[in-house]
């Protein structure tokens, strides 16, 4: 901790020095402009901000002297800024003197690590006097040393000039060298000052540089391609060098925008120490991967969410030493921050070895706050419970501390992270600790993307939205895609995946040149937590692309997130997957396709439930909760075998008993499905599976369930209105019990 704090302090001081020297130079320039009467309206604002920043930063890192000196000048400047005072030559002189004294202290800080022991009370007195005086009475000054404490924090805005003192002809000597040895540069100053080795550059300038490099890369590509055909050794050499230099240049320029995540983390040792102290906890902070680099804009965006999570872990996660010892853990809690690159994204994990998330308590809290219904509470999985903490207005802290627990926070954390294209996930083990995993893109300007082709037009799909690629060959290409009332779907491992044909959506025409592919290429995408498949002609490659905005003429098209320039210099459009899904109506029509990733939609799931709707024969519309469905399968009739008087099929190296659902319905005795292939819903529980043979699977819907329980029919758990139609809910356990009484007996191996 001590070492960390030392390094942290050094870093903060370094930042302060760079910022302040620069600011003060600016300050001087503006002051001189004011003196010449060339001040602009914003001038006073600028100088005020400079001083305000110096004061604030110095105060934060415990440089009391600099802070208090800065404070006095700030008061004067704020009066000037608000127009309560007018500048006059003596005032400017005093302010310049004041700027010099700040510089002096900063220099001293830079060289010796101390703020210097010079006494500035005379100057401060002068500045204070100036605050109250009429511009004419510039020569009046209060007594130089009548108890003006340097470290006095609050200075009343109106300090009366306590006593007339010897006049200082300030106007005559704007910079009185005998009093302020302004930039006395000690000869032992060997190393270049920090402000000499670092400069600030406008990000816009860097963006421009990046654009130019992008162009250079394209030109390089063309030249390298061209010279590749040549036999001229000099030319080949030159083009090879150009190649290498360009790549290096590109990397360097990209790097200028990147900052190590350690810059954000640098504050944490202090925060952890302070918060732990306040709460009477002992915490050891371990940080790994501080050198992991991120784009500047992203660093800015995750700063606050990360800090919040860290505070939360200390407050809610890690227990007090006594509780830890009672639980058999070391008294000192462990908080680990870890950052690393993976798959073009940055992963940040915040781990603690605290008490973990108490699912029972979270459920109870969620119930109290009516965030979920009792019925949902009995059904949701632990993982879904963890995600409840991201709901707005949720907090389990028993008492509200000033650290956290006010019920604002985790939802904001989630929103902020998602805003920059990231995701956050939480894992927890009661008594063992909690881990928050955050995934964020490396940069917003350059993103990894998959390039696809549809009707010889190229499109880039951001990798974040990409789940998987499916290729249907031969037979499957013709039969794999089914239609539900004209809407194409594909069964992806038992889930119905709505399909969007990119060429149809975009009304792309055959140019006649592309080969007529027999295979079907499906790009499985995710938008807003829902999945859909996009059918394209060709899947090319993944590439790092530079995102460029579209002109206002095209802003109205929600399907595109921007455009990029490809290696050959041509422009390709970047798809906005959410916009495209909305345009293709896959999101508006079918409510929720996210079967595998339901946890992401807890807020919706907590009010709604997903159902698989099917036709059980005789036009009866049936539904079963999707949670009861393991997979959807299709078996040709000829696969059916019999075993022990029951229909079975061989399925995944096992024997799957089949149950004809219609046989067990009170009124469906003779409606046994004759369809071929059989549509089977695979239901798994206790490690065993059973196949429910249904008539026709029609849809997956998400509805708020209002079951009418008065229905008393065999095999029916109740009825509900789903999609405006009366739908019977299948009593799955009841049917299975009726068909195979042994199914629910645990640990019985019979296959």
């Amino acid at each position, binding site marked *: 901790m001590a070492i960390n704090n030392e390094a942290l302090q050094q870093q903060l001081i370094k930042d302060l020095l760079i910022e302040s020297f620069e600011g003060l130079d600016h300050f001087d320039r503006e002051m001189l402009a004011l003196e010449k009467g060339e001040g602009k309206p914003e001038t006073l604002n600028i100088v005020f901000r400079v001083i305000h920043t110096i004061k604030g930063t110095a105060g934060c890192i415990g440089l009391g002297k600099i802070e208090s000196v800065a404070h006095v000048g700030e008061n004067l400047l704020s009066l000037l800024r608000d127009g309560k005072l007018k500048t006059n030559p003596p005032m400017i002189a005093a302010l310049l003197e004041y700027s010099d004294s700040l510089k002096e202290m900063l220099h001293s800080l830079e060289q010796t690590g101390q703020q210097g022991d010079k006494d500035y009370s005379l100057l401060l007195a002068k500045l204070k006097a100036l605050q109250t005086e009429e511009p004419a009475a510039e020569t009046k000054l209060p007594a130089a040393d009548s108890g003006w404490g340097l470290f006095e924090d609050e200075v009343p805005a109106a300090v009366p000039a306590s006593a007339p003192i010897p006049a200082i002809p300030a106007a005559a000597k704007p910079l009185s060298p005998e009093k302020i040895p302004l930039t006395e540069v000690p000869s032992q100053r060997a190393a270049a000052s920090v402000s000499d080795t670092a400069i600030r550059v406008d990000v816009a300038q860097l963006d421009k540089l990046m*654009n*130019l490099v*992008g*162009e250079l890369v*394209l030109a390089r590509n063309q030249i390298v391609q061209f010279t590749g055909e040549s036999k001229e050794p000099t030319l080949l050499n030159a083009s090879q060098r150009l190649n290498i230099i360009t790549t290096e240049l590109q990397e360097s320029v990209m790097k200028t925008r990147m900052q190590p995540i350690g810059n954000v983390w640098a504050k944490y040792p202090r925060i952890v120490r302070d918060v732990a102290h306040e709460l009477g906890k002992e915490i050891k902070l371990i940080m790994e991967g501080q050198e992991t680099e991120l784009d500047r804009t992203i660093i800015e965006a995750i700063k606050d969410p990360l800090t919040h999570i860290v505070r939360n872990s200390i407050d809610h996660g890690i227990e007090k030493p006594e509780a830890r010892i009672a639980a058999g853990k070391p008294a000192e809690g462990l908080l680990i921050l870890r950052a690393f690159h993976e798959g073009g994204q940055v992963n940040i994990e915040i781990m603690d070895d605290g008490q973990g998330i108490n699912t029972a308590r979270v459920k109870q809290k969620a119930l109290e706050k009516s965030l979920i219904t009792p019925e949902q509470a009995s059904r949701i999985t632990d993982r879904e419970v963890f995600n409840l903490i991201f709901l707005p207005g949720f907090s389990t802290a028993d008492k509200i501390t000033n650290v956290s627990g006010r019920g604002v926070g985790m939802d904001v954390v989630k929103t902020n992270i998602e805003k920059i294209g990231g995701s956050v996930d939480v894992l927890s083990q009661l008594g063992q600790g909690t881990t928050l995993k955050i995934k964020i893109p490396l940069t917003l300007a350059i993103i990894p993307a998959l390039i696809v082709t549809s009707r010889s*037009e*190229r499109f880039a799909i951001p990798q974040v939205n990409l789940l998987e690629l499916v290729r249907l060959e031969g037979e499957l290409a013709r039969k794999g895609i089914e239609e539900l009332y004209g809407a194409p779907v594909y069964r992806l491992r038992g889930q119905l995946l709505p399909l969007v044909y990119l060429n149809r*959506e*975009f*009304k*792309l025409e055959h140019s006649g040149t592309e080969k007529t592919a027999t295979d079907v290429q499906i790009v499985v995408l995710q938008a807003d937590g829902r999945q859909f498949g996009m059918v394209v002609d060709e899947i090319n490659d993944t590439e790092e692309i530079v995102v*460029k*905005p*579209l*002109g*206002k*003429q*095209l802003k*109205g*098209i929600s*399907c*595109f997130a921007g*455009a990029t*320039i490809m290696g050959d*210099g*041509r*422009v*390709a*459009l970047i798809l906005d997957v959410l916009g495209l899904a909305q*345009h293709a109506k896959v999101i508006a029509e079918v409510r929720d396709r996210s079967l595998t990733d339901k946890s992401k939609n807890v807020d919706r799931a907590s009010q709604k439930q997903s159902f698989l709707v099917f036709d059980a024969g005789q036009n009866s519309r049936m539904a079963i909760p999707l949670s009861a469905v393991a997979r959807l399968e299709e078996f040709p009739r000829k696969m059916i075998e019999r075993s022990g008087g029951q229909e079975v099929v061989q399925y995944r190296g096992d024997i799957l008993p089949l149950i004809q659902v219609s046989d067990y319905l009170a009124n469906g005795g003779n409606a046994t499905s004759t369809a071929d292939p059989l549509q089977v819903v695979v239901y798994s529980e206790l490690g065993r599976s059973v196949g429910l043979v249904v008539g026709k699977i029609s849809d997956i819907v998400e509805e708020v369930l209002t079951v009418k329980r008065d229905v008393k029919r065999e095999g029916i758990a109740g009825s509900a209105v789903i999609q405006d139609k009366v739908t019977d809910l299948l009593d799955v356990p009841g049917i299975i019990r009726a068909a195979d009484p042994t199914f629910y007996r645990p640990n019985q191996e019979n296959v």
Partner: protein
Amino acid sequence: MSQTSKQYCTFFVNGQFFGVEVLNVQEVLRYQQMTCVPLAPPTVQGLINLRGQIVTAIDLRRRLDLPARPDDQLPMNVVVRSDDGAISLLVDEIGDVVELNDEGFEHPPETLRGVARELIKGVYQLKDRLLLVLDTERTVNLSGGAALGNEQNN
């Protein structure tokens, strides 16, 4: 030349002679490969890569409700500056830069109809032909009724 003259970059669209103020023109390029934008307004022909900048290309023939360009004729780009960055106007052929006295500038005749009325600022009578001066800001603004050739709000 007198103080009150302006330079115009001239070009031909469907045999008609148009001009835009040279100060609004960033550059003139020959035909560039274009990427078409699905779902875009029909006047947007595509996107071109102008030294790393992505520029929207507007087909002036469609913009001005003129018959489509024959397939074998490649358009030229007149890249104009607008409030929203550079925009390329696709024209048939580039003419000279001409300097014209403001005195010769006339407002378009009342009988001018349709979208042309909105986009043509004025007319110069040259010796052998008329020069139609385009309002570049309005021409590149496809929002509202202008894109459809109806009235446009200023």
